[in-house]
């Protein structure tokens, strides 16, 4: 046992989050450790098929094949033996674990009309693991400062680029004032609808309030009316009904920093919900992001006045 433990330490593999490690079968977690990858972005488990990892955007196949019963047991383990407690999010295709881990759930849907009432015969699980990165997002903070905190910024990119990571870092910078030596901390409210922004483990010197699991519309109302927010941050907007509600509740003048999926500004503003937000002048700028290969981002800023 001593030799095995020393070998694991020598491999230099960052430990996976505890909530994930506890639920994985030993043979799978052991194979993951033996791969030696220091940073794993995703673990994908499929019933009766080989598991795989996502490392730096590449798919790495593993040898471990899980039985359907094992995949179901892993989900039950992640739900702490309380599947009912995660019913609502499972029906939307995911569960959120402590530390910002998001697990995509795939299986057979039980439906009542258009409504999914349960997911059975779980066939695959996709575990997305967040990692700490160096502070990024000063440009977003400078934009906001340039608007004198009267307009917001919408960050957009294709999926998987790092919008959530960027939002997390921007929230930390704004709530600590760390993005500039002359800046005071701002009362920052994060509406963490899907539990991905995960601030539980962040520093104690942040002027930060987190509304975890709140729908975005209600979260913004609470942030502006009850929490006296100076800036509001939320993830993945774009739904038309949500946009209408955001416009209705956003007459308070508190800037909103949000993210959305889109390849380019034309595609972004062609979506009905985002077009509505654009015409209501919720955002003063739109920031397209891409990775710079060194853990940071490159920005392509389009001001509101430059858009059609």
């Amino acid at each position, binding site marked *: 046992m001593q030799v095995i433990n020393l070998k694991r330490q020598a491999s230099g593999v960052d430990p996976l989050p505890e909530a994930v490690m506890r639920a994985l079968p030993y043979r799978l977690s052991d194979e993951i450790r033996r791969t030696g990858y220091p940073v794993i972005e995703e673990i994908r488990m499929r019933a009766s098929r080989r598991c795989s990892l996502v490392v730096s955007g590449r798919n790495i196949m593993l040898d471990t094949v899980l039985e359907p019963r094992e995949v179901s047991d892993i989900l*039950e383990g992640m739900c702490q033996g309380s599947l009912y*407690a995660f019913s609502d999010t499972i029906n939307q295709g995911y569960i959120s674990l402590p530390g910002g881990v998001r697990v995509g759930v795939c299986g057979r849907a039980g439906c009542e009309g258009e409504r999914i009432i349960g997911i059975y015969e779980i066939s695959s699980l996709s575990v997305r693991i967040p990692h700490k990165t160096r502070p990024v997002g000063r440009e977003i903070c400078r934009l906001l400062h340039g608007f004198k905190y009267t307009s917001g910024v919408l960050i957009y990119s294709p999926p998987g680029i790092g919008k959530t990571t960027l939002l997390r870092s921007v929230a930390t910078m704004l709530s600590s004032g760390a993005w500039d030596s002359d800046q005071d901390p701002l009362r920052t409210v994060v509406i963490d609808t899907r539990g991905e922004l995960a601030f539980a483990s962040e520093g104690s010197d942040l002027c930060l309030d987190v509304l975890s699991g709140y729908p975005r519309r209600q979260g913004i109302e609470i942030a502006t009316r009850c929490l006296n927010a100076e800036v509001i941050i939320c993830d993945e907007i774009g739904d038309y009904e949500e946009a209408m509600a955001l416009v209705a509740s956003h007459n308070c003048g508190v800037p909103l920093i949000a993210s959305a999926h889109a390849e380019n500004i034309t595609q972004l503003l062609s979506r009905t919900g985002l077009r509505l937000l654009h015409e209501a002048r919720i955002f003063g700028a739109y920031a397209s992001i891409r990775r710079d290969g060194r853990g940071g981002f490159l920005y392509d800023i389009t001001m509101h006045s430059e858009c059609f």
Partner: protein
Amino acid sequence: MMTVKLVGSLLFAVSGVVMAVSYSRFQTKKLNTIDGFISLLFYIKGQIDCFARPRSDILSTLPLEVFCACNCPHGADTLEEMVEASRIYLDEEPLRLVASFSSEFGSTFKDEQLRRCDYYISALSEERRRVFSEVQSKSRAGSALWICACVGIIILLW
């Protein structure tokens, strides 16, 4: 000799009364245990319906009175512990019901879990009615038997 007989008779009489009281209390305890598990199920159902709380959180906030009623005065980490602690106080069918609930608890989605809570509450309530009707008659009969047995032994010894 007479003194020994008197002391012996007294001891028999006291033991008869003690046994009668213990038997009566045991029967009452059976009823209280079923009540305890019914209260537990109501509590679990409320926590799931209102808060969708995980099972470990539900037990950590369970009132002490319910733990005591389920024969776990120092609390318990799992439902299985509570079932095991109450085993001697439960008849075959109530024991089967609570063991079945604890083994399948947490393995279904919310709507189904609530329906199962309703089913087990209803089934245990039915068992409670049956046990209630038996407890009174058993307590009286048992107490009378113990006392009569002790009196009979005293008479034989004299």
